[in-house]
């Protein structure tokens, strides 16, 4: 009896040691990864931006696609209105977003009142998010109508400075992945959650250190088209008083964290089985599911990733422009799936 009891105790102690080791390894990986990204982003921002986009943009979108397919229910049921609103919003906002530069290049629109066009799109985005939050709240029988005062307050800020608001979204979007990771750790690895949140406290310190080091630094040379695009994307035009070295560094650092979450952290933590196994996706596995459609979608996605790499190799600047225009769809898609986690 005593040996049986000791066996149970020993197993429990071994499990505790293993948990502590895994927590420690996880935290170490996080810290090393974050510090490495910060160092590379600070020392070679332009080069790091080019390389990370080339290597990780397409694959991270593929992983996101797989993740979204994993989270889609077979039948919408009570979530019908939520998903209808989500997909309609993604489609319409993407079309609107793409139409502005298309109309401009086609000569149909002169680009006059560009800030008003941006402000209108941002407002539609905020209203769509507010609607999704309200619908999600109703599903969970929670009162989330507080989101509307926040939506209207953000809309007000947006109309004061539409381009700056859009720039804020560019910087905030990479952080959404960290929220996804937090929710999945809560579900799948609760023992890692505390370490993760403590490591998150590093981020504002690192960004503050970057600001302190680079605020007065010389701006990056953007005399070629690609460097100019990178600095503009980071907000060089809107924040001329800040060094573009600082802007690009912070932006590419946050983007690298975003890629790290989608390519490494979430597949390791949230994936049930090999990422290549289509049957691990409920929508494909179910008797009334769509295994061929899901399989074709994933394979098609791989082709698009390969095409993207080809495009980057052939003409990096143009491919970059096309990618960031079309990629708005994946940014929008993150919203409903994150809400589903809450």
């Amino acid at each position, binding site marked *: 009896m005593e040996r049986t009891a000791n066996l149970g105790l020993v197993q429990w102690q071994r499990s505790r040691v293993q948990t502590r080791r895994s927590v420690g390894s996880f935290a170490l990986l996080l810290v090393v990864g974050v510090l490495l990204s910060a160092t590379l982003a600070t020392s070679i921002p332009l080069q790091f931006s080019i390389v990370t986009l080339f290597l990780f943009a397409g694959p991270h979108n593929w992983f996101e696609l797989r993740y979204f397919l994993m989270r889609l229910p077979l039948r919408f049921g009570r979530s019908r209105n939520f998903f209808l609103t989500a997909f309609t919003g993604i489609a319409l906002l993407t079309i609107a977003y793409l139409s502005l530069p298309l109309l401009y290049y086609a000569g149909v629109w002169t680009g*006059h*009142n560009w*800030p*008003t066009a941006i*402000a209108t799109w941002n407002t539609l985005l905020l209203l769509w998010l507010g609607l999704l939050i309200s619908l999600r709240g109703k599903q969970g029988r929670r*009162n989330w*109508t*507080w989101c*509307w*005062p*926040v*939506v*209207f*307050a*953000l*809309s*007000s*800020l947006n*109309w*004061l*400075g*539409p381009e700056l608001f859009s720039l804020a979204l560019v910087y905030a979007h990479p952080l959404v992945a960290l929220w996804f990771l937090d929710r999945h750790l809560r579900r799948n690895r609760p023992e890692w959650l505390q370490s993760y949140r403590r490591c998150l406290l590093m981020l504002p310190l690192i960004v503050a250190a970057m600001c302190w080091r680079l605020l007065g630094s010389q701006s990056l040379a953007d005399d070629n088209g690609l460097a100019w695009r990178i600095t503009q994307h980071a907000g060089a035009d809107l924040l*001329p008083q800040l060094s573009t070295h600082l802007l690009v560094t912070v932006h590419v650092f946050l983007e690298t964290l975003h890629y790290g979450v989608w390519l490494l952290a979430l597949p390791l933590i949230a994936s049930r089985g090999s990422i290549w196994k289509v049957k691990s996706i409920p929508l494909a596995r179910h008797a009334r599911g769509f295994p061929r459609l899901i399989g074709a979608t994933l394979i098609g996605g791989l082709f698009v990733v390969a095409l993207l790499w080809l495009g980057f190799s052939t003409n990096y600047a143009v491919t970059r422009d096309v990618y960031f225009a079309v990629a708005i769809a994946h940014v929008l898609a993150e919203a409903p799936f994150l809400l589903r986690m809450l």
Partner: protein
Amino acid sequence: MKKFIPVALGALVVLSSALYTLADIPRPPKPSPTPAAGKPVLHTELTIVPDPKGSEARLQIAPSDLKILREALASVDSNPTTWERLSQSSTRTIIAGAFLFLSISLAGVWLARSDRRRSRIAAAVVFGVALVGAASMIANANAGPPGTYLWRGLPQALTEGKSTNGGLDIEIMPEGYGMKLIVPSRDFKKPDHQEE
């Protein structure tokens, strides 16, 4: 009460939208014995630097400021319609103000009708957004001392050969007006060497 709330909300929305119908009130014809007021298109900064060796006044503009000035001037129309007259940064201020009204109204009603725990969380969120909003307002308003305060030392500075820095509104005037720099002299301090 349950019926009253939707009716009252509807009245609020109608009130808000009714503002737009009043934009078409015809303006009474105005005689203008005095020169027409200018229309401000840009607010920026100006430094007046006395130059003891120069023979001609010069206006020096940085490329970034010239770009901002060009964009502001590009939006000026010589014969704007009612909507075009409003469709510069006034449009954005109007819409921002309308959203601010909706935000504060809904936040207050929600807080008043919610339980305490939710009220505290929501109050924290609303406070955070209000803080950011206040910062934006201050940034947008170029908040600081009024122009009369900043320009009050100009006579003394000119006497001493020093620079003076203050806010500048660039206004578009009627044809034939030429170019003038008007500095608020209401609070001018007399230079030290001048006697009463």
